[in-house]
């Protein structure tokens, strides 16, 4: 019975494969094809070089599908564009209009409380922030733009990534369906979705935010999923044995215990966002990334390096803040220190 089922499965795959071949043959241009299809079985010269009729027609339908998408749901993408752009512009403008010492002070305050009052981290982050502008006054506003894009991208990742990660951990089918999609999101070259991003959202910050989302959300989803599944089975059993509903177990036990892993995911997410924002400068996103690009285009080594250092500093700031916040949570939920008896 079981064997019969696997054979059936292979048979279906075979039919699909044959079908695909026939489609590609039929849709190939006549000048690439032999006069009659029976010629294939008489003249075997097509076995030498890859024959031009054996060409799966993917580009055409994708293009027309994309056109259809823009025509039909353009208003939907316009809405997303409007929302994200509005968010970005208002955030950027308000921070840029602030005097710079105030911004540094705000960063110091955020770090101080997020890290659980660690002086060392706070001092490090304060210096890094100062050096952004100190490297070149031009960088200050650009770094703020980049930061705004990264922060909005991250918020988008968190809002979508964490619920999806939870759904994956709780349901095996969802996980099996999503894992290949996550692999695809991580491996597909970024330019492949930067181009449709431009077509859908125009040049500027929004396609960068979308690209950040596509590139940076997979690790967050994976680590959320992993974190929840790694919670000690006996602890879950204990929760169930005392009559906790699934919801109570999730919110009261699984999520709090998965939090260190989730925080790690958010940290990864931030780092990947920063990497992406530099690439996004090639599609005209303003920010510190375009300084690197400019240096590259002018073969100005010093300029590119200077901007590169600024990006590293920005990365250190983001990393330290998210990392130390994660450590703080971990310290609160699982204190390691034994008490003296």
């Amino acid at each position, binding site marked *: 019975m079981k064997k019969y089922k696997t054979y059936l499965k292979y048979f279906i795959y075979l039919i699909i494969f044959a079908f695909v071949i026939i489609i590609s043959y039929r849709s190939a241009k006549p000048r690439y094809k032999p006069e009659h299809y029976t010629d294939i079985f008489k003249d075997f010269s097509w076995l030498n070089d890859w024959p031009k009729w054996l060409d799966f027609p993917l580009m055409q339908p994708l293009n027309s599908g994309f056109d259809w998408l823009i025509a039909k749901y353009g208003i939907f993408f316009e809405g997303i564009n409007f929302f994200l752009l509005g968010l970005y512009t208002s955030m950027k403008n308000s921070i840029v209009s602030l005097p710079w010492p105030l911004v540094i002070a705000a960063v110091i305050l955020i770090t101080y409380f997020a890290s659980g009052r660690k002086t060392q981290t706070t001092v490090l982050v304060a210096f890094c922030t100062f050096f952004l502008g100190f490297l070149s006054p031009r960088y200050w506003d650009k770094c703020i733009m980049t930061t705004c894009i990264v922060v909005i991208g991250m918020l988008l990742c968190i809002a979508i990534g964490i619920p999806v990660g939870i759904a994956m951990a709780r349901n095996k089918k969802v996980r099996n369906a999503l894992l290949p999609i996550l692999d695809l999101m991580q491996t597909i070259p970024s330019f492949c979705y930067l181009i449709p991003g431009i077509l859908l959202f125009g040049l500027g910050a929004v396609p960068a935010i979308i690209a950040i989302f596509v590139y940076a959300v997979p690790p967050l989803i994976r680590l959320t999923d992993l974190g929840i599944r790694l919670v*000690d089975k006996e602890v879950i059993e*204990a929760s169930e044995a*005392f*009559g906790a*509903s699934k919801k109570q177990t999730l919110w*009261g036990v699984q999520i709090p215990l998965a939090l260190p892993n989730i925080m790690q995911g958010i940290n990864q997410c931030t780092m990947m966002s920063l990497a992406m924002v530099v690439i996004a400068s090639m599609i005209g996103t303003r920010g510190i990334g375009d300084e690197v690009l400019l240096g590259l285009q002018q073969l100005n080594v010093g300029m590119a390096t200077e901007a590169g250092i600024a990006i590293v500093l920005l990365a250190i700031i983001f990393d330290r803040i998210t990392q130390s916040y994660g450590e703080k949570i971990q310290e*609160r939920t*699982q204190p390691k220190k034994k008490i003296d008896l």
Partner: protein
Amino acid sequence: MSKIEVKNVYKIFGDQPSKVLPMVQQGATKEEILDKTGHTVGLDNVSLSIEEGETFVCMGLSGSGKSTLIRHINRLIDPTAGEVLVEGTNVMDLDQKKLIEFRRHKMSMVFQRFGLFPHKTVMENVGYGLEVQGQKPEERNKTAMEKIEAVGLIGFEHQYPNQLSGGMQQRVGLARALATNTDIMLMDEAFSALDPLIRSDMQKQLINLQSELKKTIVFITHDLDESLRLGDHIGILNHGKLVQVGTPIEIIMKPADDYVAAFVKDVNRAKVIKAKIIMKPANSSDGIDKSNLVKVNEDQFIDEFLPKVVCSNANCEIVDKEGAVKGYITKKELSKALTKEHMADAAKSTK
């Protein structure tokens, strides 16, 4: 009616347990099943009944299915076939909502590796059962503090579990199970992860608590001494089959098969036999020297009063809780009790 009844329960782990079930029912062994189908037999036709207020100890080596069995009682695991009745209700008939209510109010559980919530303080851990029931914090903290006091952890209520030692953590587990005030307590190798000294301490504490609370306890262990010490009845599992059920004396005296016999071979009898089993009744105590007597409670084990008797070279006067004299023990009884021959009579007299 028994408090808990397990009727012909089978549990088979694998992809298609229902297809393998007939093979198991026809008596194929665990190895054959694993070989032919890749399924693991967890429980093989287990039936037992547990009375209200008793401590039932389920014993077996690792892999014998004892943890699987205890998880059937609160349905953390569903059986492949068979019934589990708790107070006459078949737990398999409960829907999700009723099952949650059932777990909240009917039974609580203590775990081998404690199963404490590392992100909650001791007090929050103990109050967890009440928290999921929806009790208000003030109320449940009050109950939690009472139970923390009962297990002797006052002063640690605001610590986190992994700041405590193993023994203290398990006390938290015990207090958490007591807090919901359920009739039935399931204890899955509750003391197995503790070192011997703390383990015997915890056993004592459990015996004391049980003498007050009179709960129905299902206790899982792989330690024979522990099972003899705690159990009113003991069930011995081997490869998913229940090979013997009986009182501690019956198990030692009449092992049902070689497996049980090997288990009980090296038992320290002094730790298992209670004074009332070997005493000479008060009405036939003529000729016993009563000038030098040591008072012994009838429920004490021999090893608890033996040193006293030997040192003072005295005879024992056995009294019950109220202090009434029930009988006497002389050296003759003691020496008989600690050799094999006497055990047959002892087993008969308890039946």
